Every structure is written in structure tokens, then in C-alpha cells.
């Protein structure tokens, strides 16, 4: 049955954005925690820890997010472990985002000259204190643009969670298209909604960067 694409459909699409946002929040939070750990492993003075971090990044960056979603949602249930879509999504997105954020943050940490660490060490600061007071504050400013850039990618990549049953923005668009047969209008609306999410973020990133720069 084909019906018209109406304002109600737009409201349904807007409502579906809440899953997009929820998935993004979970992915960014989980990925942030994993990413921080990975970044620290990758700059560790202990070689085995660095290797562990490197292997993690190589494996995760070399495998599709879709595969992780399948493994956690369908794979584990075959093994008899029932996993809710939320748990499967949280795990997959944290693993995926952790690898990318970890690499971004490692790069920012390593962009701070070695002499800054040395100056801190020479004053008797512990490794943790050097990170906290000297390295991380400087690396944070460098990290903002690429981190927000990745966050924007993440928002768009939450559409993959549709394969394990999430009816987020893109999936809602598909469903609407199926009943209205207005793909052009529907997907333009979907794209506009994504833009409304992403554009303010990039703007905020610029403002934040400028502010941090002014405050050094």
C-alpha cells in the first residue's frame, strides 16, 4: 500500500534520531574509555604494553564494524549466549571507536615534544604527573578537531546498527520509503537531519579550539 510522505513521517524520522543519538553516546563513551586505555598503552615505556596496543589497533582497524555487530549479536547467540541488541551495539561500537580514538589520541600525545616529558621528569614529576599536568593538557588542544571529526563519522556509522534491529534514522528512512515510495524526498530529509546533528558539532569544535587557544 503506497501512501503520501507527510509531516507525520518527518516526525517519525525525527523521533528515530533518538536512537541515533543514544547509539552515538554509547559508542563515544565506551570508545573514549577504550581509546584512552589504548592511547596510554601505545605510549607506554614498556614494550609488551605497546605491542598489545598496536595489535588491538591493527585487528580492529582491519575488520569491519559490521562484522563485530554480527559476531556479538548473532555469533554469541549461536554459542548459546543471548545478547541484547544494546549490549551487542555497546560492545561493538566501543571496540571500533576505541581503536580509532586510541590512534588519534596517541598521535596527539606523541606530537608533544619529548623534551616536555624530560623537563617534567627532571623536576621530579612522576610519569603520571607528567601526563596529567604537562602532556595531556597540551595534547587535548591538538585532539579536538580530529576527535570531533571522528565523532561526526560515528554519528553516521550508527546506521549500521540497523542490522541488529535498531530502527534509527537511516532504517526509519528505509521503512518510510517502503510505504511512501518517495526515496528522493525521504532520503533528502534523512540527510538533512544528519546534517543538523553534525554541523553544530563541527562549529562547536572550532569555537572550543579557539577558546582553548586563547587560554593556551
Amino acid at each position, binding site marked *: 500500500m503506497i501512501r503520501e510522505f507527510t509531516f507525520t513521517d518527518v516526525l517519525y524520522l525525527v523521533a528515530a534520531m533518538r536512537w541515533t543519538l543514544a547509539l552515538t553516546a554509547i559508542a563515544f563513551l565506551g570508545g573514549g574509555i577504550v581509546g584512552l586505555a589504548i592511547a596510554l598503552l601505545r605510549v607506554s615505556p614498556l614494550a609488551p604494553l605497546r605491542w598489545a596496543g598496536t595489535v588491538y589497533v591493527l585487528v580492529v582497524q582491519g575488520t569491519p564494524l559490521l562484522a563485530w555487530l554480527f559476531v556479538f549479536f548473532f555469533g554469541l547467540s549461536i554459542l548459546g549466549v543471548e545478547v541484547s541488541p544494546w549490549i551487542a551495539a555497546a560492545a561493538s561500537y566501543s571496540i571500533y571507536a576505541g581503536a580509532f580514538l586510541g590512534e588519534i589520541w596517541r598521535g596527539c600525545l606523541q606530537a608533544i615534544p619529548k*623534551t*616536555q616529558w*624530560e*623537563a*617534567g*621528569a*627532571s*623536576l*621530579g*614529576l*612522576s610519569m603520571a*604527573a607528567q601526563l596529567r*599536568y*604537562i602532556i595531556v*593538557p*597540551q595534547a587535548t*588542544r591538538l585532539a579536538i578537531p580530529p576527535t570531533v571529526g571522528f565523532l561526526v563519522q560515528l554519528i553516521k556509522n550508527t546506521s549500521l546498527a540497523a542490522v541488529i534491529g535498531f530502527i534509527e534514522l537511516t532504517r526509519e528512512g528505509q521503512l518510510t520509503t517502503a510505504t511512501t515510495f518517495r526515496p528522493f524526498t525521504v532520503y533528502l530529509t534523512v540527510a538533512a537531519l544528519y546534517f543538523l546533528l553534525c554541523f553544530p558539532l563541527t562549529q562547536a569544535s572550532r569555537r572550543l579550539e579557539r577558546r582553548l587557544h586563547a587560554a*593556551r
Partner: protein
Amino acid sequence: MPLVDLKDVVKRYGTNTVLNGVSLSVEKGEIIAIIGRSGSGKSTMLRCVNGLEPIQGGTVAFDGTIVNDPGTDLRKLRQHVGIVFQSFNLFPHLSVEKNITLAPKVVKGMAPAEARRLAETVLRKVGLAEKIDAWPDQLSGGQQQRVAIARSLAMSPQLMLFDEITSALDPELVGEVLKTLEEMAREGMTMMLVTHEIGFARKVADRVVFMHHGKIWEEGPAAATLGAPRTPELETFLSAVLH
């Protein structure tokens, strides 16, 4: 007991031997100038004293503590050994005050008000009391280097290491930094300084150490050693730098 005692120190980067059996002892209150060509190992030797460079042979002792012993708490040791670098290495995201007070607050647990007073005191010593609220990038090279010296002094070290601290400065800014060093010398600070300022070494140092090919080639009282070199290598070096 000497304050600093290096015995047969060997330092290699891969197959490249940078220090090839260096022995040197420094008494409390002494000022040692270390000179030599670039690549002769003088900066490396200095960085071994506070454990910034791990060594492959020999021993480095500071105030009776073996620096290269894996069990030594380098953090504790470094509170007593200040180092100032060629490239200043101020923390660009912190004001002058915060640069100076970071370590006293974090390492020694000093209260903020007391730390601020300490910053005022050490900045007065280097003649920059009015710059306490400035940012590093608002200062000239000479001023940045004096802030770096003040930052080290704030930890009340027993020994100060200076690694070519005037080499990155415009010629007209060298004087103000050297004046600060002279001031510290007068107050009896034990200092080891790697320098290319031969005139300054002659004037301020008690002893001069000339390094060549990773060894101490020649050492002795400053005036005598610089005035009458015993080895052709030192003579060549001096004529090259003094032209």
C-alpha cells in the same frame, strides 16, 4: 665524598659509543665547565648525572646514591639536581608562575600561596619578578631561559646542570643569562655547565673539562687549562672557537 662521582661511564647508542670510559668527580660548591666539539659526548655526560640517559657501563653517583642502579628512585634524586636545557623547555600552556610552581606543588605538596611566594623569590633572583603572570611565548629567548633557571631553583637543588643554555639565544641575549649564572656561582651553587662560551668558562669555572671522542681528553683549573692547553686537540678546538 664528592657530590658527583662518575667512574668509567660508558654510553652507547647501538654500535655508536658516545661515552667511552668517563671518570669525573665534582665537589660541593665547585663549578665545572665542560667544553668540546659537538658530538664529543659532553651533553650526554651531563644528562647521565640526573639519569636522563641510561648508561651501559661504569657508575654515576650523586651524593652517594648510585644513579644508574635500577633500584634508585630517580624522582627523588631529580628533586636535588636541577637541569636547564638549550631549548628552554618551558611548559607553553602554563604561565610563568605555574611553570615554576608546578613541581613544588605536585612533588612537594606546597600550598598555592606559599608556592606563589616561592615563584616571586626565584624570579627576583633571575631578575624577572615582573614577569610572574606572563606566558612563555610573550618572553624573549633570554627571559625564557631565565624562567627555566628559576623553575629549577624553585626545587632548591644541590646541583645545577646547564646544557648549552645560551646556544639557542641571539648574541645580545646571552649576557643576561650568563649574568644570572654568575649570580648563582657567587651564592655557592654547585654547577656543571656544558658551554661554548670559553671566556665565561675561564671567568667563572673552577675547573674546565675538555671532551673529545667520548673521553675526557684534558681537565684542570680553568685559567691554566684554557691558557696553556697540553694536548693539540684542545689547542685546535680553542683556536677554532676563539678564532
